[in-house]
């Protein structure tokens, strides 16, 4: 009976949406310091990423434009954020990078296949290429990634460590 099938599917999606709504609300509330359903626009990136999405800086910029007020106030309201974020989750946009792709990216930057990148090399790539890191981001990454004795980043170990930490 096609109708029942359709209803079942709809119902399932309703439930999924309801759960997404609650999840998004939770993530939003943690940054809603004044408990008035707004967050600082500078924290929106963190919220979106905490929900498992990995937009690039450019994509994030576009998302923020969607949820901002007509006249930007520096704050994002939950009422605007919720529908946009729900779509993102339903469409499974901005999927995270799988571990093997990440490893290959490091290997591209290490054509000599030494198994590591020097500190200077990493800094050069991260702060000059792509969507460059700020100084703070660079320092933060180095503090965990760098092996102080060799002043280099053994990327395979680093990735493994980070993946374990997240799980």
């Amino acid at each position, binding site marked *: 009976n096609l109708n029942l099938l359709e209803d079942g599917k709809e119902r399932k999606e309703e439930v999924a949406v309801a*759960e997404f709504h*609650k999840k998004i609300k939770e993530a939003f509330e943690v940054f809603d310091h*004044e408990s008035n359903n707004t967050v600082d626009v500078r924290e929106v990136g963190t919220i979106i990423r*905490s929900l498992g999405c990995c937009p690039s800086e450019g994509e994030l910029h576009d998302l923020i434009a969607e949820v901002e007020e007509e006249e930007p106030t520096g704050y994002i309201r939950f009422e605007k954020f919720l529908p946009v974020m729900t779509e993102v989750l339903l469409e499974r946009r901005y999927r995270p990078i799988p571990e093997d792709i990440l490893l290959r990216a490091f290997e*591209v930057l290490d054509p000599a296949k030494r198994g590591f990148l020097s500190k200077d090399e990493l800094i050069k790539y991260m702060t000059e290429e792509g969507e460059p890191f700020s100084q703070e981001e660079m320092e933060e990454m180095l503090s965990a990634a760098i092996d102080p004795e060799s002043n280099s980043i053994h990327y395979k170990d680093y990735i493994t460590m980070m993946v374990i930490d997240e799980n």
Partner: protein
Amino acid sequence: MNTPNLEDMGCGTSSATKDKKSEKALKAALVIQNWYRGYSARLKTRQRYALTIFQSIEYADEQGQLQLSNFFSFMLENYTNVPEKEPGLVTRLFGSSIQDKDRQDYLGLIEIPDSYCGPRLQFPLTFTDIDLLIEAFKQQQILHAYYVLEVLFETKKVLQQMPNFTHTNTSPSKEITICGDLHGKLDDLFLIFYKNGLPSVTNPYVFNGDFVDRGKNSMEILMILFVSFLVYPNDLHLNRGNHEDFMMNMRYGFTKEILHKYKMRSVLMPPIPMDGDRAEKKNKLGTATVALGIRTSGSFSEQLTKQEWEQVIDILWSDPRGKRGCYPNTNRGGGCYFGPDITSKILNKYQLKMLVRSHECKPEGYEICHDGKVITVFSASNYYEEGSNRGAYIRMSSGTTPRFFQYQITKATCFRPLYQRVNAIESSAIRMLKERMISRKTDLIRAFQLQDRNKSGKLSMGQWAFSMENVLGLNLPWRSLSSHLVTTDKDGNIDYMSGFQDVHIQKPVKEVQSSLIETVYRYRSDLQIIFNIIDSDHSGLISMEEFRSMWRLFKSHYSVHIDDSQFDELAERMDLNKDGSIDFNEFLKAFYVVHKFDQLNKSDTKLA
């Protein structure tokens, strides 16, 4: 990723290879950056979640504290109704055995031995005494009780002569520094003095209360602040916080610190009177600092009227929020939440520009809200845990915008990387949460089973989150935390019993019911406070009769449904009876949580 495909542009082979290489490098860099930003965001969120857990539990405990205060009020009101066999108990509780003895009477009881090599203060105090104390405390010396008493009496005398409101003048050449909660963290005070200079006539300070509890140097902080106050009474301002309260001190560690550092128990009863309040405002005309206050001499039997007490709570416990209006502070159980409209109204009414308050821990050490009219400043870094938050202080003067200074104390000579710090506070927070869960196990299971119609042992995420929030009374992001607390199957359903798997309360006696064990564990802090108050000679022992009576009264006020006989049996079986008296500390210590995967046996969360 919009990287142009250089090959399509028909470049020559050698430059095409070079361009292709750099295009690959660009793409690789983007991948790594993208991944890292996602990882970093999730790390920061985990840190926030941990803080939210700490804060929620702290406020829930404060609710417990206020409930305890109500319990004592309840007892006071029911004094005449207490049955005949318990009059002794209530007299002990409410009869003030502390007369306002003479200063000399107290000081006469103490002698400073020649062997004492700690700091010696000279009255009248001067700035050299401040230096002396700081140096001594840096070397972890303890100030002799004789000097402590002298300072306390002197401070009390001066404070009693001061008005509730203090006005002070500032100018660009004489800025004032405002500090928030210190909570016994001496290193933070040292850091502030190091960075900002010692208090003096040209370097005035305001300390916004909560000097004591939680940290391990409440006494030292108090002594430094009081001595500085006595030397510079017009330039060092002390406002009262909600922890300047002897019942809070019993729960949150100051009393314990005193009893530990100073074995002369019976002498240290004179309560510390404090004027002033944590609200401090800056006059529109530019130069006044105002400290609101309710004067109280603090002794338990000299009661404020009920209305006055409620006003005190309102001032000392309230928090600003974004929602307009004024409504009960349900998190803490006392005071209210006030919105930006309330702030504007009050500030306009008294022609004030700004409210600087404390009382709430902020990750960055300070926070501005209500359109810049309310500033929260918090000066105890790493308040919940190493790495949990920064501390801050503010410098301001009339006509200039306030300047904020942040800091964070760290024990390690080099910073641990962020992910390690986050891991540490996250595990600590989850641990605390699990202990909460186990202390409400019976109620939680009942709530779960009510929803689990077909007795499958599983609930949907929504159902589980709903019960957790309802029973525990903690407003937390349950969905995000679920992975740390329970196991989920592939359909996204939660095995609710899995939450109790690796934690349990050690049963001091096998035969007693779990629900009783749980209840005593849950209320152990309250019970400890009550027992300590009954134990007026601080011997650590109370009579079995008093022990039982107190339990019965407690039971009725807190609506605990446990059979008296069960409790009696428990007490007897634990055999802590020493000639008709019970060592209540031993009794309470026997109720602790065991975490399965610990190397240590006992829970880290100690009794206050």
